[in-house]
């Protein structure tokens, strides 16, 4: 009889769940909301600021071409290369800036930790797919653009179960 009651309990649980809210995030229509604007780092305290580790954003006005991010990446993914830009900056005499290959990047954010000049942060943008490998290489000018993201779905919990808003 224990067997029968167990089977009935299981069937009952299964039927009950037909009325529970669905938990699937319908991705292209809905996008998950993240905390903050992306992972940032404060070199004065040595502590980061919570945020999503997505595609980087590079502030050309702050980048000094010091290569610290490339060195940090050397041990991790070798995704960052320093390239020449044809811009004139007083603090960037060599005019080199990071170029990131997202085919290699592992989004660990150590390059952000390495940057002492508040020049390299990460953003909430994660839709980076491309048809070619070259399309995954982001030049400094592409990295400079602030991504436009529309993310609003959040997990909402109520009596009928959880769902993405």
């Amino acid at each position, binding site marked *: 009889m224990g067997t029968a009651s167990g*089977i009935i309990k299981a069937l009952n649980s299964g039927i009950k769940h037909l009325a529970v809210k669905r938990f*699937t995030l319908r991705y292209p229509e809905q996008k998950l909301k993240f905390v903050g604007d992306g992972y940032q780092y404060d070199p004065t305290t040595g502590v980061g600021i919570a945020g999503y580790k997505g595609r980087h954003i590079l502030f050309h006005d702050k980048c000094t071409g010091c290569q610290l991010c490339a060195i940090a990446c050397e041990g991790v993914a070798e995704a960052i290369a320093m390239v020449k830009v044809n811009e004139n900056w007083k603090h960037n005499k060599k005019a080199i800036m990071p170029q990131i290959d997202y085919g290699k990047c592992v989004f660990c954010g150590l390059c952000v930790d390495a940057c002492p000049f508040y020049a390299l942060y990460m953003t909430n943008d994660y839709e980076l797919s491309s048809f070619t490998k070259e399309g995954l290489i982001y030049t400094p000018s592409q990295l400079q653009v602030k991504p436009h993201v529309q993310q609003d779905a959040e997990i909402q919990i109520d009596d009928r179960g959880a769902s993405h808003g």
Partner: protein
Amino acid sequence: MSVIAPKFRLGYFIKALLDNIFWAVVLLTLAGIPAIMILLFYIDLPIIDGQILTPFLAFTWMTHPEMSVPLVKAFMQTDFFRIAAFPGFGFGALLAAGVIFVERKMLAKLQLRVGPFYCGKVEGILQLMSDGIKLLTKEIIIPAKADKPIFWVAPLLFVGTAAAFVSLIPVAPKTVVADIDVGLLAVFAIIGFFPIITVLSSWSANSKYPFIGGIRALHQMISFEIPLILSLLGVVILTGTLNLSEIVESQATYWWIAFLPVGAIVFFIAMLAELERIPFDLPEAESEIVAGWLTEFSGMMYGLVQLGSYLKLYAFAGLFVVLFLGGWQGPMVWPPFPEEIVTEGITMGPVTAQIPGLPLFSQEMLNGTLWFILKTAAVIFFILLPRGVFPRIRIDLLLHVGWYRLIGLSFVNIFIALGLLYAGVLGPEGIL
């Protein structure tokens, strides 16, 4: 975003399609039309109202609205229509397709996900069609050392046997493909073919996993055949007939599930095992033996096996309804029209409303079909539900359940039936 395969050229695809169409047309003109002519030469064409009913005449009559309805109605009573469309293959396949869709959506709902969603705009209703097209364009790979004739024929035989099973199920009064005196025995005879097909196809693949899966399937099917057969004996004892239509008619007042719940439960469990549905899907246990006896099937062959298994599912559910749930019996939902409304239409003032569709069917048949489908859907729901709820059982436990529990319970069921009969509750002197 999906990407089409790099080697795909639309031009080649269209060219292949056109080629096929061309050859089909050529074959039809060269072989089909002469064949029809020869056939027409040999068939005795009936004489109606002084004219020979040639196909051309039949087509001419078809265009006339008054005559088309009786013609279609007459066509619907032919064997061909019964086999191909209504209570036969087409109906079964349609229900099977519905079952596949419902299974996916229901399982998704149970598992808190969405299921097929994008194909066909409305909740992925065309997913099955797209899957069919996908299977159709998949390459069929046959293992090099396989026994090719058996390997090719096995899926076809599987579908054919399942269809033969479908043909025995009465859907509505006098709406059955084959109305056989020993219908129930014929069901057992047909069920007996499935293990053979399974074992032969698994043997012919010449691969280890199909072989183990086939032998497991064999053990499972034959072990549950005996409880399946014995659990139905109670119904036969109480009705004294083996004809499925007569069994349905005997349930006009009470359904047999009210008197023989034990038999119904045993039959249901044995049915799950015969169908290889989830608690008993050992032959396809993917975590042990990759896909069991289906491992080497690819492309459309796999699709055919799936079609056969879902036809079988429909047939078993229908059998359960016929034997235990009163078949087509049910309160008259469709309001019984007077005969003249059906034939002549309703006249309300200046407007005369014709009901052209209704004369094709009788009201009993529509009502019976409706109830049958409703009950079958309910049974199918309970066949599908365990898939979301139970894990897979092990082969020795399965055999233990089959040989110890279910056979014992089915004998209990037989003695319940005997007791009911001899106590005078049921039977000739009883309440029925």
